[in-house]
């Protein structure tokens, strides 16, 4: 059994690439080994900013021999009268075996000639020499680059290669222009703590040898060291460190030998908005902020940085970092003070200079559009005058902070600064809250806006983006969604649902579209594409987030039934409730019974002429009844009507389902009872009257769903 080590030494890799590269190796390395019939006992993947490595333990030294069977010509063609023909001779020659080695064996298609051969396994060293360059050049990532005078592309320049099979150097070469990298046993230690090259004696010694050279090659080790050191460092100042998982992951791949260092700053800076202080620390300096205690929102005037330097020099390093954060916080203080010299509203006109999209003009123009849309939503929702006033104000101001110095410097503070500056400018609290909330949710699983004003402005902002971009024909495709339209549409649905808004999206889209069409020519088919887009989003949220069966989603969105599609957009809450309710019915078994009753009626009703929207029983003619079962069904339908109306009005479809379940026996009697009728009577009037009865039943059921789309069982 042998152990193999590959280390690719590089200049500092982007932190995110280290993880991505190891992830790719996790799938590609075992696969390429098993493709070559090589078994292993364990594979470890290591990475730091300056190296990617893999250690494979338990490899055979020799690839096992493989039995191979090659099918030749049919036996009839190969042998005649027991004598080999040209076909047999040619086949044996081609395979390099004597004629005696040919075997005849039956197959599904008759007897054939076969050659059985043993392919001798190759030395593992030889196989690995060939594989390793593919493992390296097979890695993919963003923004790969060339260097020197070569054509090789990698995340950052590759500077050395270590390849050892046990204690022997495994020859591997990579060519890059005039430079040829050849594998060796010489690695590099930590840049300053171990500047001398490191010789690795045996592949199995890799991690310990590097650890002695002040390089912790195992990312999970580094991560837990950072975690522990940071916790301890925070405790040393009676605080609690904020360690966000994404920052921890990044910092882990920015260092080879982590040391947590505490730095402090002037407590005066704590009068800045905490978001500003935290953003400076986390996004710009990759520091961990420190809170007074777990769960507290109060920052302490300290930070924790993870140094890659000599622990003995921590005091110098802390002092240097303290100067940097001081300068940055002073910058923040400068921006904060300068931005507040004028009211937030002053910035609105400067949005003229910020592009929203080349063909759609500036963010200033967007603000005007979204203000109008917010007004349309407010009208639809019958909001009060005060609410409408707040909405208009928030809509006007919601993007103003984009041109403040603070947001120019820290784009991630958009909305947050708008809220602060709005309050500082004496804007109403509701307006300020809406400014920060209108960006919510920022992604899947994020908080939703809590205030009505924030919800309306957030909806308006997204509807403007969706309609505007769609009107240019820039529909998202596959993986390309540069304006995050899917996320925007999901947000529209989730906000409406969670806030329980009686939003008529169908009407709203048409109003907004009509306004766009006034300003320039737009292709009419694109509004239909936008409808479809929303229906797709509805489908995806219902199926994926709400776990509703696909056929039940079809039943409420209508498969090729525009009536349902339109209705879904009239009231988003209603479509959601009906879908959830159908799933409940399926889970408790009610659906199966309903299905029989409704579908039998529906199939026959299709031969009639009754409009699918018609719910009133007034067109039934009792004078044409021939059997009491008809009268019974008629009466049941008359009683059903108020239940259906009530169900629709309150979105309490249990009422409808209970009523439908109650008339099921009446329907059975109509079809199969002692006084059953033949629907397709020869008298056209009688026939139509019976079809109308069934049509009515179908139409009542349609208020809940298109039962035809439901898959039985």
């Amino acid at each position, binding site marked *: 059994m042998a152990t193999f080590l590959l280390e690719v030494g590089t200049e*500092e890799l982007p*932190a995110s690439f280290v993880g991505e590269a190891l992830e790719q190796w996790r799938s590609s390395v075992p696969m390429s080994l098993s493709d070559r019939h090589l078994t292993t006992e364990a594979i470890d993947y290591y990475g730091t900013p300056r190296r990617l490595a893999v250690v494979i333990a338990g490899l055979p030294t020799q690839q096992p021999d493989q039995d191979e069977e090659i099918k030749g010509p049919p036996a009839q063609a190969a042998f005649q009268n027991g004598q080999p023909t040209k076909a047999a001779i040619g086949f044996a020659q081609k395979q390099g075996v004597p004629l005696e080695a040919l075997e005849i064996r039956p197959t599904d298609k008759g007897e054939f000639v076969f050659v059985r051969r043993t392919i001798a396994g190759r030395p593992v060293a030889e196989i690995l020499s060939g594989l390793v360059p593919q493992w390296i050049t097979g890695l993919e990532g963003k923004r790969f680059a060339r260097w020197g*005078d070569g054509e090789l592309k990698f995340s950052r320049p590759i500077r050395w290669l270590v390849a050892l099979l046990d204690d022997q150097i495994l020859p591997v070469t990579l060519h890059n222009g005039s430079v040829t990298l050849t594998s060796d046993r010489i690695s590099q230690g930590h840049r300053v703590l171990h500047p001398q090259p490191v010789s690795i004696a045996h592949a199995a010694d890799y991690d310990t040898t590097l650890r002695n050279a002040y390089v912790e090659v195992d990312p999970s080790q580094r991560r837990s060291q950072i975690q522990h050191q940071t916790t301890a460092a925070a405790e040393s100042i009676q605080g609690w460190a904020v360690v966000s998982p994404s920052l921890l992951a990044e910092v882990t791949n920015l260092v080879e030998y982590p040391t947590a260092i505490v730095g402090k700053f002037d407590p005066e800076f704590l009068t800045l908005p905490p978001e500003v202080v935290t953003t400076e620390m986390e996004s710009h300096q990759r520091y961990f902020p420190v809170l007074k205690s777990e769960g507290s929102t109060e920052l302490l005037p300290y930070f924790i940085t993870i140094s890659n330097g000599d622990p003995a020099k921590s005091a110098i390093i802390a002092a*240097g*970092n303290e100067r940097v954060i001081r300068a940055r916080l*002073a910058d923040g203080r400068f921006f904060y003070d300068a931005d507040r010299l004028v009211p937030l509203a002053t910035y609105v006109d*400067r949005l003229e200079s910020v592009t929203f999209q080349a063909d759609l003009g500036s963010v200033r123009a967007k603000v005007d559009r979204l203000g109008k849309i917010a007004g349309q939503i407010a009208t639809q929702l019958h909001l009060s005058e005060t609410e409408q006033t707040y909405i208009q104000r928030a809509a006007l101001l919601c993007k103003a902070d984009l041109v403040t110095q603070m947001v120019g410097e820290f784009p991630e503070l958009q909305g947050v600064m708008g809220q602060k500056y709005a309050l500082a400018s004496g804007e109403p609290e509701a307006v300020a809250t809406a400014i920060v909330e209108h960006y919510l949710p920022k992604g899947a699983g994020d908080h939703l806006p809590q205030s009505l004003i924030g919800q309306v402005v957030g909806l308006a902002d997204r509807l403007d983006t969706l309609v505007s971009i769609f009107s240019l024909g820039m529909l998202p495709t596959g993986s390309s969604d540069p304006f995050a339209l899917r996320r925007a549409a999901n947000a529209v649905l989730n906000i409406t649902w969670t806030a329980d808004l009686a939003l008529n999206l169908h009407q709203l889209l048409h109003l907004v579209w009509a306004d766009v069409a006034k300003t320039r020519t737009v292709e009419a088919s694109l509004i239909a594409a936008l409808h479809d887009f929303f229906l797709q989003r509805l489908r995806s949220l219902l199926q994926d987030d709400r776990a509703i069966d696909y056929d039940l989603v079809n039943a409420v969105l209508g498969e090729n039934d525009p009536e349902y599609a339109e209705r879904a957009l009239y009231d988003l809450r209603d479509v959601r409730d009906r879908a959830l309710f159908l799933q409940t019915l399926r889970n408790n078994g009610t659906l199966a019974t309903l299905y029989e009753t409704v579908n039998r009626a529906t199939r026959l009703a299709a031969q009639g002429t009754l409009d699918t929207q018609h719910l009133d029983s007034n067109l039934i003619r009792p004078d044409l009844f021939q059997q009491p079962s008809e009268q019974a069904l008629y009466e049941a339908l008359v009683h059903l009507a108020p239940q259906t109306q009530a169900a629709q009005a309150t979105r309490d479809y249990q009422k409808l389902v209970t009523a439908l379940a109650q008339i099921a026996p009446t329907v059975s009697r109509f079809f199969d009872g002692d006084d059953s009728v033949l629907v397709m009577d020869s008298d056209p009037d009688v026939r139509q009257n019976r079809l109308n009865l069934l049509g009515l039943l179908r139409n009542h059921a349609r208020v809940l769903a298109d039962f035809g789309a439901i898959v039985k069982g």
Partner: protein
Amino acid sequence: MNFQAVIATLHQFWGTYGCLIAQPYDIEKGAGTKSPHTFLRAIGPEPWRVAYVEPCRRPTDGRYGENPNRVQHYYQYQVLIKPSPDNIQEIYLDSLRALGVQPEDHDIRFVEDNWEDAAVGAWGVGWEVWLDGMEVTQFTYFQQCGGLDCHPVSIEITYGLERLTMYLQGVNSIFDLGWTDEVTYGDVHLQGEIENSTYNFEASDPETLFTLFKLYEQEAGRLLERALVLPAFEQILKCSHTFNLLDARGVISVTERTRYIGRVRSMARQVAQLYLKQREAMGFPLLKGEHGNAA
């Protein structure tokens, strides 16, 4: 170490390494990359090693001398080496040693930072170098310039001279930097910052600037037609700076903005191609020497 000593030390260091010590280029520009010593020389197969100080102007960064870290005029120390040497990071660390910064005493980090200047069709990958958390240098492996693939690849090292010297001197305001032991950076540049901020944001005449842009653009076009590489390039630089001045005035509307950048980019591409063709016609004279500037 005072400001001019930092420059002298870097000249000494990179000169000894084998770089041509060039002088600042006498046209306003936003970054040292836009000097022809970098922008043009990064194109084509000829080796090149150069180091120079480049004054940079970013009109929108003016703060009337009130912000201790931000100014509309500052200096970059720019190094460009083609092809990029294998041990360039070590050489760079040696340059810090020359400045009195022992890497052993500090936390020096190469943190991913890729560079792109769409207006001149250029991009590269690299890092910002952190010295105890402070960004002091930008490192870039040039991949494209003027829309042309760089082959071989140049490495560009850009030191933020003020930032670095502030670190060395332990001062918190750019204006407190000692240029010499007697004269501060503020003595030299504060009044200019105030006046130029006023000019950039208030006193410049947009009409004149629009006219100038048009004239420079016409001139560049005319010179491109006559295949006069450097004169055309200079007019493009003037276009670019005039655009930045217009931008600072906030008078470029959104749609115009994209168009203006597109116009500059198209000229930058033309001049890059013209330069390459010209060098090719000359037989790439610098290819003869083993080292960049030996010929």
